[in-house]
């Protein structure tokens, strides 16, 4: 995907976040966080489950070659087709080819990060094929022409009034400002599409190597529609989604919905192994699985960074992240946001395009506490910060030279006792130029980045002096 990775300006974006975004995002995350907490409290073995979940994911990525081989054989013997896509471009071509062979004119899609990752809609539309998102939130943002602001509720930043305007404009109707009515309108509009589309495209939450089964978890029922109504079902799934067997699946199904939305299970969980057996049962006559690499096998090489591939995309880390809650999903400039985005995008898109993201964190560790598969997100963030600033065996440093020089000067100065003491003497005098009362509200660069948002207390005493005084007075 390095081919098409534009620079992600997290800092610049986050300086101009419209206030409606943190408000809406915090309403959603607040609800998910309390829902999750309630579900977790019901399950005494929660921590044990997390540990097992983590162990199984670790084991699976360390044996990914074996499990993928098993998976492929099982899908083939169930009568499905397997396609391997090294890059996003490969995956797009594979899907287009299947569509062409079957004279597909319209496609219904259920929510999938893998297809967003490879910008599949754009490619289909460029080929003259209508491609419609059918998850209500995804449908809305497709009409709006924006990206998702949250993993689970992608259109949470839009008000019902804004959505009504969108519906009125695109559907040529007079849509009311009522969420229930709007959902009904979407239901009717999309129903037509489900029944007429020749091809359904989905992602997948898990791939069971044991039997070649695709597991899909959804709430609205659009996922079932996309994989039941059209004659052809194409699932585009990252190779990291493979799990060993059905017994391991029980662990992840127990972890996933509880962590994501605070449900015990999502409304619909489908277990699809190959195409339909008889026409009468319904469902597609052809089943295609596109296994997407797109940089994942390279991430696997880094023993620290590879833990990102354990992710089951629940979004819990974003829901608790103080940075994400204040900037929302757009700031992360990619299909995936929040702490998981901050550790995935730099590895997938490279630390050139996404070099700001590892720094978009306070390292408070809340994400690691809730992650159902125990990904050590702060450790990976620090690991990637080092990659950005100093470079490592996987990438050259990508931080600008001026910052690198400043940083190495600072680290030199802080390491020299006399220089450090000298600094603490002159700094208060120097800063007093900028002091207004007891506060500094207009510091020079680079401190201005802080004072733009809030004033800095003025330096009053050096800690060393204070400590000496305290020690003397308690003697």
């Amino acid at each position, binding site marked *: 995907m390095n081919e098409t990775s534009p620079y992600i300006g997290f800092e610049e974006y986050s300086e101009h976040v419209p206030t409606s975004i943190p408000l809406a995002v915090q309403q*959603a995350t607040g609800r998910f966080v309390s829902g999750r907490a309630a579900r977790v409290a019901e399950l005494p*073995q929660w921590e*044990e489950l997390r540990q*097992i979940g983590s*162990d199984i994911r670790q*084991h699976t990525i360390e*044996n990914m*070659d*074996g499990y*993928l*081989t098993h998976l492929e*054989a099982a899908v083939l013997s*169930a009568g499905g087709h397997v396609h391997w896509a090294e890059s996003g471009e490969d995956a797009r071509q594979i899907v287009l080819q299947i569509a062409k062979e079957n004279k597909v004119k319209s496609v219904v899609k259920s929510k999938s990060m893998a297809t967003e990752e490879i910008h599949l809609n754009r490619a289909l539309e460029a080929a003259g094929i209508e491609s419609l998102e059918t*998850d*209500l*939130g995804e449908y*809305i943002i497709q009409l709006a022409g924006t990206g998702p602001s949250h993993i689970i*509720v992608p*259109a*949470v930043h839009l008000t*019902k009034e804004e959505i009504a305007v969108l519906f009125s404009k695109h559907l040529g109707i007079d849509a009311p400002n009522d*969420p*229930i009515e*709007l*959902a009904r309108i*979407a239901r009717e509009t999309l*129903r037509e599409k489900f*029944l007429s589309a020749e091809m359904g495209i989905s992602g997948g939450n898990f791939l069971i190597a044991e*039997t070649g089964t695709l597991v899909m978890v959804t*709430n*609205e*029922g*659009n996922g*079932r529609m996309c994989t*039941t*109504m059209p004659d052809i079902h194409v699932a585009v799934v990252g190779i990291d989604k493979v799990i060993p067997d*059905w*017994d*391991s*699946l*029980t*662990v992840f199904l127990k972890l996933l919905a509880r962590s994501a939305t605070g*449900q*015990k*299970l999502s*409304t*619909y969980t*489908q*277990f699809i*192994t190959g195409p*339909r*057996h008889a*026409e*009468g*049962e319904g*469902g597609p006559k052809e089943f295609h699985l596109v296994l997407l*690499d797109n940089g994942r*096998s390279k991430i*696997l*090489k880094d023993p620290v960074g590879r833990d990102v591939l354990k992710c089951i995309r629940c979004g819990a880390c974003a829901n608790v992240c103080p940075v994400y809650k204040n900037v929302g999903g757009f700031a992360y400039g990619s299909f995936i946001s929040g702490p998981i985005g901050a550790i995935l995008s730099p590895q997938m898109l490279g630390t050139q395009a996404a070099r700001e993201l590892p720094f978009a964190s306070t390292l408070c560790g809340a994400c690691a506490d809730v992650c159902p598969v125990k990904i050590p997100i702060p450790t990976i963030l620090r690991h990637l910060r080092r990659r950005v600033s100093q470079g490592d065996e996987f990438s050259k440093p990508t931080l600008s030279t001026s910052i690198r020089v400043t940083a190495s000067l600072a680290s030199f100065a802080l390491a020299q006792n006399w220089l450090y003491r000298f600094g603490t003497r002159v700094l208060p005098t120097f800063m007093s130029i900028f002091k207004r009362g007891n506060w500094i509200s207009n510091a020079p660069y680079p401190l201005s980045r802080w004072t733009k948002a809030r004033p800095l207390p003025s330096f009053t005493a050096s800690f060393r002096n204070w400590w000496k005084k305290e020690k003397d007075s308690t003697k």
Partner: protein
Amino acid sequence: MTNPILENIRKSLGRTDQISSPQGAPLSLRPAIYQPRQPESVESEIETFLNEIKKLSGIGQKLSPDGIDFALETLITDQNIRTATVWQTPHLRQLGVTEILNSFNIKLISPNADKHEMAQCDLGITEADFLLPETGTLALYSSTEKPRAVSLLPRIHLAIVRPEILRADMHQVFAEAKNSNYLVFITGPSRTADIELTVTLGVHGPKNLYVWVII
């Protein structure tokens, strides 16, 4: 036949051994799984199940076989049902579901009907193959007698189920179901909170879910 993706994975993982069998390297044992949930008495499992259905905004009840007549009549009036489609299974046949619907002048559509026709249906009646009490979940297979669309396209889904299909934990369900080509877990009616986080039932799937446990 070499597969570049598998090659890359093997390189990244530092594999040096040759792939000896078409199945790839033999798999090491995956970590052990926790203890599955243990069943309670049938009565209390049914209670737990119905309780969960209620929490999910579904409508569940216990019913004796003689009660089906009246319950269907009530459902037909409450939900203004005109057309229905029914799974062709021995259990539903034995309960006389289609006869009862006929007696109320409900238009019956074949469960194998064309999808456009099926989409016009008010009521879809199925049974289930497994029930999970802890989560209020119905698990359904599919076959020519049990088409997938019956629990999906009509605006109301009614599942008439037997207590024998209760399973304490997903483990048992999966042990029995893993070799089937299709299985779906249904946990409550279709829902979304995508517009201003307002919970709306019946987005794409059925708006109402009725579950009758026949005892």
